[in-house]
Structures are given as C-alpha cells and as structure tokens.
C-alpha cells in the first residue's frame, strides 16, 4: 500500500503545474452556469470535468516522457496502476463531495427535488464509468492514440440516446404511457437502482484496474 501512495504522490507532483489551469477553467465554467440560474447544468458539468481531470496524469506522463521512471521505481506494476486509480478515486471523491454538498443545500431549500438528485447521481456514476473505460485505453495506446479511441467511448452513449428512441418507436414498443411507467418505476425504486448502479460501478472499476494492470505488465517501453 505504501508504494501505491508513493505512486499517487508522484502523480500529484507531476501534474501540479498543469492542474492549476485545469481546475481554473471548470471552476469558472460551473460558476457561470450556477450564477446564471442553471444550477442543474453547472453541477452536471462538474461531473463532466471529472473525465478531463482523470486524464491529466496520462498527458503529464506523456509530455514529460516519464513512463520509464514509473517502471523504474521499486514497486510492483500492480502498485503503479493502483496509484493511478487512487488518483481517480481521490478526484472523484472531491468532485462528488462538492456536488453532494451543493445538492444537499439545494434540496433543503427545496430548489432540488428527488428527481434532480437521482439524475445527478446517475450523471456522476456515468462519468466515473467513462473514466474507468478510458484508463485501460490510455494505458494501452498512450495519450495521443488513446484520445482518438476514447471518442468511441463518448459516441457510444450518444448513439444509444439518439438511436434507442427511434428503434423503440419503429419496433412499436414505445409509447408515452410506457415512458411514464418507466419514470414511475425509477422514482419508486430509486434507492435500489442507485445501489445497483454502485455495484455496476464497482465491477467496472475492478475490471478496469485488472485490464490496466495486465496491459502495463506486458507493456514494453
């Protein structure tokens, strides 16, 4: 575990220069949304920036050509990958905490309701799943090629969002009544669905770590 923390600290030292700019841009962006009245958009963008923050160590590692250094440290490859995942978990915790505090406040002053909380939670979970999918891609292909391949990851949900309704309408299974029923189902089982989503998140996270580890273990630098 010590080495995992050492790798995590090394990541932080490596990104400390660039993170200033990365933090400033989303902070201004989200603040603008919130002050203009679109709190909802501001909070969801904060989750979106998780995907960007998650890639900073990869781009810093690539820019600084320090991959060899990572492999030279006296730690196991599993610890090296563990350090990077610890970074992801840490920034996720920070962003979830910020979003959580704002949502709790808005909920108490009744500007937010159950529906918004559920949607925002799913938004956060989806962002983290996207990060988990990206990590093995960046380990395998590096930052440059990885970016191009990651576009496919972003396209997949877009394809589902736009393709699914037309598919359902064409197949004759879609109706407003069914849609409302589905929403009611979500509302009445929100806790169970959130738990299921969290379970899926853990499984995806673990698989992402395992795949990343295998990629790094067999990687030649």
């Amino acid at each position: 575990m010590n080495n995992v923390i050492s790798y995590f600290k090394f990541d932080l030292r490596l990104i400390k220069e660039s993170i200033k700019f990365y933090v400033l841009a989303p902070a201004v962006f989200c603040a603008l949304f919130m002050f203009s009245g679109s709190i909802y958009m501001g909070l969801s963008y904060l989750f979106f920036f998780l995907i960007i923050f998650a890639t900073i160590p990869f781009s810093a590692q690539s820019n600084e050509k320090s991959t060899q250094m990572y492999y030279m440290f006296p730690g196991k490859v599993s610890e090296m990958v563990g350090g990077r995942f610890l970074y992801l978990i840490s920034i996720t915790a920070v962003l979830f905490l910020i979003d959580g505090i704002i949502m709790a406040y808005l909920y108490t002053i009744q500007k937010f309701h159950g529906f918004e909380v559920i949607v925002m939670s799913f938004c956060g979970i989806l962002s983290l799943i996207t990060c988990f999918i990206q990590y093995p891609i960046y380990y395998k292909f590096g930052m440059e090629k990885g970016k191009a391949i990651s576009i496919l990851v972003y396209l997949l949900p877009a394809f589902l969002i736009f393709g699914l309704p037309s598919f359902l309408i064409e197949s004759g299974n879609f109706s407003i009544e069914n849609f409302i029923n589905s929403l009611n189902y979500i509302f009445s089982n929100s806790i169970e669905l959130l738990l299921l989503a969290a379970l899926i998140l853990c499984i995806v996270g673990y698989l992402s770590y395992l795949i990343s580890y295998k990629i790094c273990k067999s990687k030649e630098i």
Partner: protein
Amino acid sequence: MDALEIKNINKTFEGFNIQNISFNLPKGYILGYIGQNGAGKTTTIKLIMNHIKKESGEIKIFGKEYDEDEAGYKNMIGFIGDECYFPTCFTLKDVIATMKDFYTSFNEDKFREYVERWQLPYKKKIKEFSKGMKVKLAFASVLSRDTKLLLLDEPTSGLDPVIRSEILEILQDYIANGERSVLFSTHITSDLEKITDYLFFINKGEKVFYDTTENILESHLLVKGGIEDLTKELREKLIGYKSSSYGFEGLISSKDKQYINEHLLLEKPSMDEIIVFYINGMRRN
C-alpha cells in the same frame, strides 16, 4: 554469486534480433558493454531492467530473477542513461521528495552533498539544467541510495572530459567495497580502457567477444607495413585491415603472430583500434 548473470537471452524485433547473449559480471567489477549505435546495447539494458520482455533465456541480479521479486529486483538497480529520466518540471525539492517516498535507503544528506559538490541549483526546474547537470543529478540520485548494480547507458556521451573523468573516479569508488558492480555501455572506448575489468562487444545483436579487458588488449596486435606485405595469406589472418597505396594497417590475433614477417611493425592496439578493425573485418565478410 555473480552480480549479473545473463544466459542465452533472445529477443526478436522487426529487422533486428538479440541472439543468444550470455555473460556473467562478478561482484566488485566493471563490465564495458561496447558496440556501434544500434548494435543492441540499450536493448540489452532494457532487457535486464525488464522494460522489454525477453523471449527466452535467463537474467539474474545477485541470484534473483525479476518475476521472483519485482520490487526487490528493481531496488538493486541504479540506472543512468544519456537522457534525464526525471520529469523536467521537477525541481530538486521534488526529486528529494520522490526519492524519499520510494527508496527507504535514500540518504538525503548524501544527496545534498553531491548537489553542493556539483553546484546543482535547488530552485531551477530540471528543464533549465544543462546536459552535464542532468547527468550529475542522475548520478547524485543513484549514488545516494543503496544499489548493488549500476546500469549505465552511455551516460558520458556529450559530457566534457573533466566531468567524464570525475564520473569514472566515482565508478571506481562505487565498486571499491567488492560488493557492487557496474555495467557500463558506451562507445567512448578511452573511458573503458581506464576503468573496465571485463568487456563485452556486441554487433548486430550478437556477441563478438567477451573477456577481461586485459586479455583482450593483450591478445591482439596492430600490424603495419607496406602494401606489398599484405599477402593473401596475411589478409586471411587479419581480423580487419585498411590499406592505401602506401601501406596497410590491420589487427591480428596474438596467436597468429607467426604468420607475420619480422620486418613488419607490431604495436599494442588501443581499444578503439580493436573495435574499429573488428567492425571493418565483419563488413568485409
């Protein structure tokens, strides 16, 4: 137990192979790993560090293979290349913090001693360092912790003679206790003659020779003579030669001395000449 044992390692690349490389480096000695650019020197070092995976063969450092104890294996190695491997956005403060995190044996006072001695700036980022400073930093970081085997991949190329000489002295001090060893890859052969105990010459991924430096220097002779003396018989015995309208110069094994006319000039070759004539001979064949 040897510091480094390499047995029949093989690795295939597109257009280049490492073929059956074997050698041993005993404790307390320096091995010079020599060859032209692209001969396979860096590839061998990367294989030792497990940065590239061998297809077959065995690599042991102080009796330990990489897979037996990944972290322990890496901890024994101190690597210095011709480029700085520390992130260029780091200052010495970051280097110290990183070294402390990863190496329990890291001695900060010793590191600071080297930093003072070589006048490395604390506040500047590594990207502002000169090439010489970067190499000194690499040496300072490696020498201020407990390593057992130094792997040096042309660290002195591009350095001025004063720093090179200082580094050679450091290497001799490093092995002085008889428990540590150095593999020194370079094509600056004058450095090798001064400090190496063993030499391994690699060309196109294959071993050309491997012996003690003393044996290698003593088992070769430099022959000089007129062009009329370069008979077919002599040409066959020469490892390599170059000729002009005035005369010739070639390298011959000491055991073939009897084939040389008495009036030909014989000299002790330098390491540079041995290497040049070996490559010359291989090109002719």
